[in-house]
């Protein structure tokens, strides 16, 4: 992560009664999630990035200055971006094909310079059979996929997505997520992705920008923010950490897969997968308990040595503890939620060596599976 940031943005101003003071950077490739509660200003920031809203600030993308402090401001239609709105907003008077090609450069097929190619996008998004239909005859999920394709075919240098899955039901969401994952893996673009659903962040994003009340309260890799006790994420009732693991072995007889993670090894229930495959792992704080000594035989499969990093009391009689895997505590971080009483009675303290017991490990669907 030492490459210079591709996106550098800062916006400061008031819109009506809402005060925005947000700045962040994002890398040249991969998905940066803009996350926070409703009304925290995520959409406002995205619209500022797009130039749809103009307030004081700076916006630099891949070296191009889109907006600066001296009043220079590039209008939206001159910015090489793609924008996917929450409700697909397809042009009703054009067919799917003409919608897709609406923003495509007139003379360049896109393939010449390694740009985004029509047939590839259409295939990637699974919309080939929809090409000659009217937007009226599409389902919500189909419309959203077309909207994404349309944004991509304009050969953007930055892709902005405003809660693209929020307006869809759970089943449709799970249908589209794999398409988005494929996009993320195939595209060489920075993506800024707004969502209020942490599950989407976990599946798609590498970096996260956390916002609240018009300000950025945290930015960085997902894992770091999730395990940062000063941020609201860790204090949430359903707090969890999400990080990567590599498949080491599969146990078909018991339906288990073993994955190597930083600082240890975890076993999770899953259909067998190829060795070396990268999988996203999710561990919920309330599924993690701590012991001071190696526990005896137990029904819990995942018991690993770790070190306590920090503890933060919550306003209930609970505390959340951040632990790092590995005897030296240099591995992946997990959260553990327990009663204050337990913390006290066990005599736990920061820096202490402990054992974590992970009752449940969830794996995000693998490449070949649908969610």
């Amino acid at each position, binding site marked *: 992560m030492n490459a210079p940031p591709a996106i550098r943005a800062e916006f400061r101003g008031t819109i009506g009664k809402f005060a925005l003071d947000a700045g962040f950077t994002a890398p040249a490739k991969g998905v940066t999630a803009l996350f926070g509660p409703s009304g925290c200003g995520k959409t406002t920031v995205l619209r500022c990035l797009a130039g749809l809203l103009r307030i004081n600030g700076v916006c630099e993308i891949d070296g191009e200055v889109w907006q600066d402090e001296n009043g220079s401001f590039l209008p*939206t*239609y001159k910015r090489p971006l793609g924008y996917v709105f929450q409700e697909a907003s397809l042009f*009703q008077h054009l067919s799917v094909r003409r919608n897709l090609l609406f923003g495509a450069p007139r003379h360049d097929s896109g393939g010449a310079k390694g740009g985004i190619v029509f047939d590839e996008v259409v295939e990637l998004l699974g919309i080939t059979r929809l090409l000659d239909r009217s937007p009226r005859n599409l389902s919500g999920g189909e419309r959203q996929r077309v909207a994404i394709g*349309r944004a991509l075919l304009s050969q953007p240098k930055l892709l902005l997505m405003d809660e693209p899955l929020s307006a869809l039901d759970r089943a449709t969401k799970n249908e589209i997520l794999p398409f988005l994952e494929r996009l993320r893996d195939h595209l060489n673009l920075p993506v800024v992705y707004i969502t209020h659903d942490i599950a989407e962040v976990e599946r798609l994003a590498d970096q996260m920008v956390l916002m609240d009340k018009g300000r950025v309260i945290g930015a960085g890799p997902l894992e770091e923010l999730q395990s940062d006790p000063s941020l609201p994420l860790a204090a949430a009732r359903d707090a969890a950490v999400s990080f990567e693991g590599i498949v080491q072995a599969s146990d078909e007889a018991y339906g288990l897969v073993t994955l190597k993670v930083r600082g240890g090894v975890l076993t999770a229930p899953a259909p067998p997968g190829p060795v070396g495959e990268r999988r996203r792992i999710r561990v919920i704080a309330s599924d993690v308990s701590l012991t001071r000594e190696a526990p005896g035989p137990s029904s819990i499969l995942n018991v690993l040595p770790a070190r306590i990093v920090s503890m933060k009391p919550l306003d209930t009689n609970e505390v959340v503890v951040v632990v790092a895997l590995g005897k030296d505590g240099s591995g992946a971080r997990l959260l553990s939620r327990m009663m204050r009483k337990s913390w006290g009675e066990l005599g736990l303290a920061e820096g202490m060596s402990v054992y974590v017991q992970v009752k449940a490990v969830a794996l995000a669907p693998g490449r070949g599976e649908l969610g």
Partner: protein
Amino acid sequence: MFGMPDEIWVPIRLTIELATITTLSLLVVATPLAWWLARSKAWFKEAAATLVSLPMVLPPTVLGFYLLIVLGPDGPGGAIASLWGGRTLAFTFTGLVIGSIISSLPFVVQPIRNAFAAVGDRPLEVAATLRTSPSRAFWTVALPLASPGLLTGAVLGFAHTVGEFGVILMIGGNIPGRTRVMSTAIFDFAETMRWREANLLAGGMVVFAFAVILSMILLEKRFTRAGA
């Protein structure tokens, strides 16, 4: 023509010419005006809208009276007419077109304004994110999406001009072949108790109006179903 004597056919021809030219001119004039009314945030916008709507409410005599002054030698009409040696635009076909444009303007602006307002901001924002300049977006997105409104406006403008009587009476001078359109011709026939001719023309106008409005309703249905 068509086996009709001139005194019947010529007013019909004049009326169709007047209505067609007026309608086309109105589309050109009303569309940008309606666009501005739909999207502007200027504080005097609704005052401007009211001004545009005045001809709908003013009696034709009032409108005709002011038009006489505006078109005449004391007004801009006179100045324009002097370019070709005339003194006034009253009593000319051009004068009738101007009068009809003003009197039919609100009937054309209103539906187009509503259609543009219904398009809303979103399609234009989408177009901007797709490298489309505001002017290109107007032609390729806003206009097609608003086209049912333009159609309605055109039909209403045409029908209103065909039926326009008061204003034409006041500024036309009833010149055969130039400004004696169907409405004033019917008046003449009724005055001289030539009921057969009056009925022919009047009845024809009723049938025409019916056909126009019916086709407008059907076209509108078809347009909205086909997804405009």
